[in-house]
């Protein structure tokens, strides 16, 4: 029953604030045109596409390029893995963006970006020219860090299910097929990773499924980190009260390798055999960001100027969502990506009109985690108890944010 939310003011320099006040008379109806190409239709990209059209009152032409036919939500997908929701519940169409907002939605893949010519090259279609580019590419898994997983066959057998879609369905099936008395182990990479509370939520929901249907089975969390990365006190309390005996948490367990055939996790000093081994590999910004040559932090995450969301190395290319090197306390979440999409849309509209972007952009975060199918926790208060009201709120959050980005 709770969720955590956090609001972060993006700090900007005094000179930035002063500069903007010179241009304080920006008006709502400026229509300077221009064409923005958005790459990736997730929480960040879809929001940016819609808000660019809405806030420019149709003045900016927007093309959204997305490789999948439909939007599939990562938030709530752990409930599908637990058998509480179906894929239909987390799958939404892009037609609202086309029909309501005039976004040109193209199903294709961007294979490269030419920042000098300002064009994107597609897998199937012709090159597309842009005035500004929005990259919302999500994440790419670093399979080279787990060599035995670095091939398609292994990746079919040891799943991440950390991008919602076919892997979500496949992990559900592995859990259904597992015999009672088996072990489900989930490997969590070192932070920062996508959705800090997500692995703990998943472990909780799988434990709930076992408790109801396979009571002799066990959940094992192998965390590369020193401690639970989000909502620690609340998760530990929930595990102690709900899943004592069928959920075990182990810290400092970084995965080094796997044995695919025996579903064994190889740690530094130990090996753990599971019946279902679920590995969330280390990851970094989506491949198109690195392929474009954008400046990265730690060779993983795109560094941006938070006033405009532009890459520090490539002005004119705005980057959103999990691909970013986060500001302090800013998690990699769908909610944050939605806020990034709005910040980028506002900045792009101002820049295209020759105006200064908002000098004090502001973003909030909200995060609900299910600890069982009916109870949700949030992060900020350790006094909060699990409750069903917040579970309703969590679904309300999902339905509203989906509408805010897609319809």
């Amino acid at each position, binding site marked *: 029953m709770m969720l955590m939310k956090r609001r972060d003011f993006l700090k900007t320099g005094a000179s930035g604030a002063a500069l903007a006040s010179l241009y304080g008379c920006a008006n709502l109806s400026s229509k300077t045109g221009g064409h923005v190409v958005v790459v990736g239709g997730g929480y960040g990209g879809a929001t940016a596409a819609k808000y660019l059209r809405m806030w420019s009152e149709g003045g900016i032409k927007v093309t959204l390029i997305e490789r999948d036919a439909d939007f599939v939500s990562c938030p709530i997908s752990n409930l599908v893995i637990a058998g509480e929701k179906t894929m239909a519940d987390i799958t939404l169409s892009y037609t609202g963006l086309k029909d309501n907002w005039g976004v040109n939605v193209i199903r294709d893949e961007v294979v490269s970006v030419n920042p000098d010519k300002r064009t994107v090259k597609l897998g199937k279609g012709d090159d597309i020219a842009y005035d500004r580019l929005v990259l919302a590419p999500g994440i790419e898994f670093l399979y080279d860090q787990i060599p035995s997983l670095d091939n398609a066959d292994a990746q079919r057998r040891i799943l991440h299910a950390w991008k919602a879609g076919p892997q979500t369905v496949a992990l559900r099936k592995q859990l259904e097929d597992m015999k009672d008395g088996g072990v489900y182990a989930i490997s969590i990479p070192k932070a920062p990773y996508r959705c800090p509370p997500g692995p703990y939520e998943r472990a909780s929901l799988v434990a709930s499924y076992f408790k109801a249907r396979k009571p002799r089975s066990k959940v094992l969390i192998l965390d590369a980190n020193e401690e639970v990365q989000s909502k620690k006190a609340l998760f530990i309390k929930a595990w102690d009260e709900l899943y004592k005996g069928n959920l075990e948490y182990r810290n400092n367990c970084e995965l080094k390798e796997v044995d695919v055939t025996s579903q064994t996790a190889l740690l530094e000093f130990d090996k753990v055999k599971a019946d279902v081994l679920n590995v969330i590999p280390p990851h970094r910004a989506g491949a198109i960001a690195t392929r474009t040559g954008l400046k990265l932090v730690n060779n993983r995450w795109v560094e941006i100027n938070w006033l405009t969301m532009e890459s520090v190395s490539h002005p004119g290319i705005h980057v959103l969502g999990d691909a970013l090197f986060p500001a302090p306390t800013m998690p990699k979440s769908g909610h944050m990506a939605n806020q990034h999409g709005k910040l980028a849309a506002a900045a792009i509209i101002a820049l295209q009109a020759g105006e200064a972007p908002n000098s004090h*952009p502001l973003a909030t975060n909200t995060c609900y985690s299910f600890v069982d199918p009916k109870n949700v926790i949030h992060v900020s208060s350790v006094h909060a108890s699990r409750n069903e009201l917040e579970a309703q709120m969590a679904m309300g959050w999902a339905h509203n944010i989906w509408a805010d980005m897609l319809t």
Partner: protein
Amino acid sequence: MKLPYLAAIACLLGAALPAQAQTGPVAVRSLAASCTNCHGTNGKAVAGAGMESLAGEPQDKLLQKLKDFRSGAKPATIMHQISKGYSEEQLTLIAEYFSAQK
């Protein structure tokens, strides 16, 4: 030395007009958009999904609710925390924005 000179002017103007850029319609629209993930685009929440619609609600009612969340007078799941992240001036602007939405 042209650039430092311009920068100095900008700083002076900024000091004289600190709030202007943050209270114009574009800035307020962005400020209010930080609420709309949960409360619906322009404050029109999805019907039946359990979140309150804000669009067209009386301004004083919205502001009082926000202030009550902030003070703790009105119990909440998360709004008591979110409301503390905004200044009183920002809450006033947000209430004004949503009350004006049809």
